[in-house]
């Protein structure tokens, strides 16, 4: 059965991409598929800090995604190189810093879906 890798590249506030990725993951897990990784690249890395400090009335897609990944044991990774270029320090959230090499290796046995 297919295993998916997800790649996100836009910031959680910018667009519907985080919501769509979560929607896809829910349906994929419900249908019995495995998810190898969710990898945040480019501006998507800002989700790692957005998880922590959003106002209460703001939809917190970063947090929803983090909770989903925790419950389903899915590695939720953000690219440390992309984060460095943006001056984002490890915010100590449930997102895990990883290199592009880790993304590349995890890709090997999975099918990439870009959001």
């Amino acid at each position, binding site marked *: 059965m297919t295993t998916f890798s997800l790649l996100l590249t836009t910031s959680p506030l910018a667009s519907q991409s985080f919501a769509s990725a979560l*929607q896809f993951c829910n349906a994929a897990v419900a249908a019995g598929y495995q998810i190898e990784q969710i990898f945040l690249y480019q501006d998507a890395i800002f989700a790692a800090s957005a998880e922590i400090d959003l106002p209460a009335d703001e939809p917190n897609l970063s947090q929803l995604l983090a909770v989903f990944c925790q419950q389903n044991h899915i590695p939720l990774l953000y690219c440390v190189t992309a984060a460095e270029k943006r001056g984002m320090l490890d915010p100590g959230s449930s997102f895990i810093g990883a290199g592009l090499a880790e993304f590349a290796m995890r890709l090997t046995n999975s*099918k990439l879906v870009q*959001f």
Partner: protein
Amino acid sequence: MKLISLINPEITIAELATLCDKGDTLLLRQDAVYLARRSDIRWPCQNVTVLKSDLEVRKITPTTGISIIDDAQWVELTASATQVMLWQ
């Protein structure tokens, strides 16, 4: 069969046409579902589909020839496609 997702209503069909086969499937999602209203677009693929939840939140009725799929079908299409591509 490539599965190509469009998420933006910006029209770049001419460029997209260079990259897609007649037999590929286009999936309109997110704000690209606004394109499903239009009857004047000559899609470069035979199969054009649109994601149900994204249609519903925008209260759109697609034009004839565009089929509607739900989340489970989206996952199946993605799993069965030979390549998956996001057009952005």
